[in-house]
């Protein structure tokens, strides 16, 4: 039995590259060798990342629907027949300059009548009545605000005496109609807040679940960590492979969850005649998703990688401490 072992000093330059390579290799190896644990961890991450993704898309779709409703909200200012063209143009430019104005549309008496007829074309009595007199409708300015919450500003402006005297009637933002608009804006604001809070809550819960899963996976292997410690392995040489492994969980889970979402969103469009579930416009959700596919995938990958790496960093910490108490 001959016993001759090399005892050369280690080359330092090469050292870091070799160590880094080994950390990556060991991480990948552990991912495969602990197949059952990896599958369980990846499954949990797929579910949680999918929940984040679905709530994000649902929220975006929801916001879109709310926006569509809000787009229909406007304030009509009815102008007396006596208002001159110059005064009217002056008024339009003044309104445009007051801020929070998306558009000001001038509707002439004639167009107002056409619109009225179009809107009531199933009510023959009404159509008859209106055709038998001169045009009874007023020209109007249809004003759309950017922010419906600050729609009051438009009314306040219209209430100013010098503006008021140009008007044939109260603005449309009064009485029953005002109440209806206020109700819509209040409930859409509430729904939007619920949507955003929902996304945040789901995201936090998901992060906690992932953290917990990885902590349990590492708890299972705490002996391994302690053994490596006893053999004199450095903190990063022990921790590195665990982080690589968790990053792999995150990458696989992100790809699967995005594919899952893609598949689920394409099914209803093909098979269901309806493309909308109540407030959730599935067609829009599909468009929203496919337009942003790559950025969503990147984002999911980042979330998966960061949460995975951070979780295993935190989870390995306690098993790598040295005993410092006497």
């Amino acid at each position, binding site marked *: 039995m001959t016993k001759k072992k090399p005892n050369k000093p280690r080359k330092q330059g090469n050292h870091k590259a070799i160590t880094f390579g080994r950390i990556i290799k060991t991480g990948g190896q552990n991912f495969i060798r602990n197949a059952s644990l990896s599958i369980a961890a990846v499954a949990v991450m797929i579910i949680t990342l999918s929940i984040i993704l679905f709530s994000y898309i649902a929220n975006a779709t929801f916001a879109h629907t709310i926006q569509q409703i809000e787009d229909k909200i406007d304030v009509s200012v009815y102008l007396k027949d006596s208002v001159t063209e110059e005064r009217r143009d002056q008024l339009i430019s003044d309104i445009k300059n007051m801020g929070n104005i998306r558009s000001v549309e001038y509707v002439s008496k004639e167009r107002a009548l056409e619109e009225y007829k179009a809107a009531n074309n199933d009510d023959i009595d009404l159509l008859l009545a209106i055709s038998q007199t001169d045009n009874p409708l007023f020209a109007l300015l249809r004003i759309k605000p950017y922010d419906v919450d600050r729609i009051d500003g438009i009314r306040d402006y219209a209430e100013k005496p010098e503006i008021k005297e140009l008007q044939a009637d109260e603005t449309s933002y009064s009485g029953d109609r005002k109440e209806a608009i206020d109700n819509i804006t209040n409930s859409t604001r509430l729904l939007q807040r619920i949507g955003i809070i929902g996304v945040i809550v789901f995201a936090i819960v998901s992060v906690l679940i992932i953290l917990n899963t990885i902590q349990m996976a590492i708890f299972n292997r705490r002996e391994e960590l302690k053994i490596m410690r006893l053999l*004199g392995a450095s903190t990063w*040489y022990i921790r590195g492979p665990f982080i690589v492994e968790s990053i792999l969980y995150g990458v696989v889970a992100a790809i699967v969850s995005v594919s899952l979402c893609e598949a689920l969103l394409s099914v209803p469009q093909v098979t269901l005649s309806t493309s909308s579930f109540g407030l959730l416009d599935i067609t829009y959700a599909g468009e929203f998703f496919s337009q942003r596919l790559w950025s969503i995938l990147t984002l999911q990958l980042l979330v998966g990688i960061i949460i995975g790496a951070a979780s295993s960093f935190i989870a390995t910490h306690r098993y790598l401490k040295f005993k410092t108490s006497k």
Partner: protein
Amino acid sequence: MILLDRVTKVYSRTNTALDRISLHVEPREFVIIVGASGAGKSTLLKLLTKEEKPTSGKIVVGGLDYDKLRDKDIPLVRRKIGVVFQDFKLLPNKNVFENVSFALEIVGYGNREIAHTVPKVLDIVGLKGKEKRMTGELSGGERQRVAIARAVVRQPKILIADEPTGNLDPKYAWEIIKILEKINHYGTTVILTTHNQDIVNKLKRRVITISDGRVVSDRANARYNNEDSK
């Protein structure tokens, strides 16, 4: 090589594991520590590997004063000491070869050196041809030999073997001891704990007997009777 000066380790008010132990081990020495279970042998070894900190007293190993070590130096100390643990402490996700090569990887050995060194050491401990086995597939004796191969592969200055023959058939036990003697012959200081009086008596080395956390005898070329320490 190893110096302990009035080292005390108190775990709790009622549990004093070591009581003012003083020891001096020369380089290249082969020292056997004997004592009943609970006498304090394991605690003593844990102090040497920095798994535990002494409550009081001074420990110097290989010129390093353990009091002055910072946490980040601990891995460096452990790399200089080879340890054969009583419960083997093999890495479950690695095969035989990887378990042994791990000890070299953490010190930064290159792949070629590893490929050269590990098979030699596995041959010495009689595990040739079993490199690819996962540790779960091995018998107790085989695991013990993997643990020894891992401890000696770095050619440590100090080798600590905690009951390395405890789980083995007598014929294998003696083989293991022969490996330890060989390592000692090549210049490694060996600290061996055992219950086996045959081994102690055949080896004819320095024997330190520990009882209730104190050194009760320390004699060169000593004999040992299992019954004495009970």
